[in-house]
């Protein structure tokens, strides 16, 4: 696995100057799309992801409708220009899987029984990828869902931990993900209930526990950032906002 001649640490710091348990810089903006009911733009290191939420709204096609609850649809998509080598556009096996696990990471906190016969659509577009796009997508989607006014039991925050050069690191970037020994993304509520956990590569039981601990700590830090992004949107609204009621 570690055949390449990359050294992941220099003077105890990682390639981008982070400590082993440090997150990449995160930037979150709420309500970036005028046409969506809720939206969020997030940057986590080199990842740039935009999430849009529509709904609850009528279900099309009709046969997907559920009589007693809302269904949740989640579409994870990578732009063809989001990676170095042009990605063939459109859904592939990887994005189908990520859409499914991300939807299942968010669904447990959404109160779908409030909106029978409707759908909540979540669209996540990766504009630039730098390892950990599924966690960035889930973080953005959770903020966008809150922004859309959808009732949820709590927020969801996601973060990954990995193993490079036999060291457990938080939030691996592209080099560490590509040439590292393991990658372990998780999503959880601030209370510590895990709704998504995946693992790529190998970890010993001890390493696994340390990695989960570390990723959970990272997710808690991200939760604080999500929360303050939402609260700040409101404080901006206290100042004059130049849009008014549209005529019908």
């Amino acid at each position, binding site marked *: 696995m570690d055949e390449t001649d990359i050294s992941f640490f220099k003077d105890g710091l990682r390639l981008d100057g982070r400590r082993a348990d440090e997150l990449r810089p995160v930037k979150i903006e709420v309500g970036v799309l005028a046409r969506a*009911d*809720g939206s969020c733009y997030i940057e986590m290191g080199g990842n740039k992801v935009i999430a849009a939420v529509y*709904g*609850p*709204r*009528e279900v099309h096609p009709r046969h997907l409708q559920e*009589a*007693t609850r809302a269904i949740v649809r989640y579409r994870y998509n990578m732009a063809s220009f989001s990676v170095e080598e042009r990605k063939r556009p459109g859904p592939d096996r990887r994005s189908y899987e990520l859409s499914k696990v991300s939807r299942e990471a968010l669904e447990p*906190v959404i*109160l779908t029984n*409030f*909106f*029978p*016969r*409707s759908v909540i659509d979540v669209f996540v577009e990766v504009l630039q990828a730098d390892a950990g796009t599924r966690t960035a997508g889930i973080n953005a989607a959770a903020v966008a869902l*809150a*922004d*859309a*006014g*959808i*009732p*949820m*039991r*709590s*927020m969801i925050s996601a973060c990954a931990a990995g193993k490079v050069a036999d060291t457990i690191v938080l939030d691996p970037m592209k080099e560490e993900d590509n040439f590292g020994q393991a990658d372990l993304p998780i999503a959880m*509520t*601030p*209370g510590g209930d895990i709704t998504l956990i995946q693992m790529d590569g190998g970890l010993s039981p001890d390493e696994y526990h340390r990695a989960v601990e570390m990723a959970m700590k990272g997710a808690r830090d991200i939760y604080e950032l*999500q*929360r303050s992004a*939402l*609260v700040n949107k*409101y*404080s901006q*609204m*206290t100042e*004059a*906002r130049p849009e*008014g*009621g*549209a*005529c*019908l």
Partner: protein
Amino acid sequence: MDRKVVVPGDLLSEDAKRSGEGTYIRDGNVYSLLYGLANFRDKINVIPLSGKYVPGPGDNVIGVVKDITFSNWIVDINSPYDGLLHISEYPKRIDNEDMSKHLRIGSSIMTRVKDVDPTMKVELTLNDRKLGPIRAGQVIEISHTRVPRLIGKGGSMISMLKKEVNCSIFVGQNGRIWISGSAKDMDLALRTITLIEREAHTNGLTDRIVDFLKKEKGARG
């Protein structure tokens, strides 16, 4: 009044009895369900800042006819769920063939939600003097989350507004508002409602609106 911005999952109280709208209880603690403003009174209510209108029985709403079936008008009420207006709920007795003579596709109506069943079938009615088709004036749309502020406590804001701007106003719970009056009065009403929508989350709003109206009217002379 004690108010605070909260996000879903925020702990609001350790007393389960204080749980109000937009909250839920787990292990005897009250948590927020929504992203919005929490009002701390006897009960804690969280008022959302956005979201879709979900119809409830007794709500006055403004709808637009979007289809006509054998004996129902299907009405868009600015919600994930369409409203159904049965011909028997029309104030006059009319024949099935004549439905489109009374309400055409595109007609706007002031109507009331009569009943909502668990599968979210929404039944509307026009059987009230206040209700009926819209023939004059204009309809504006605001977020339905701002409607309670526009109405005010016990209708204080809206009755003040009706008197001050000299217009007929019908407020739909779904965020659509009908105004009718002279062009100048309607313009002032529109600007006032926009102001209320923008500042819906601030304190002492009614007083500020009274000042705003006084100033606007003074400028007009």
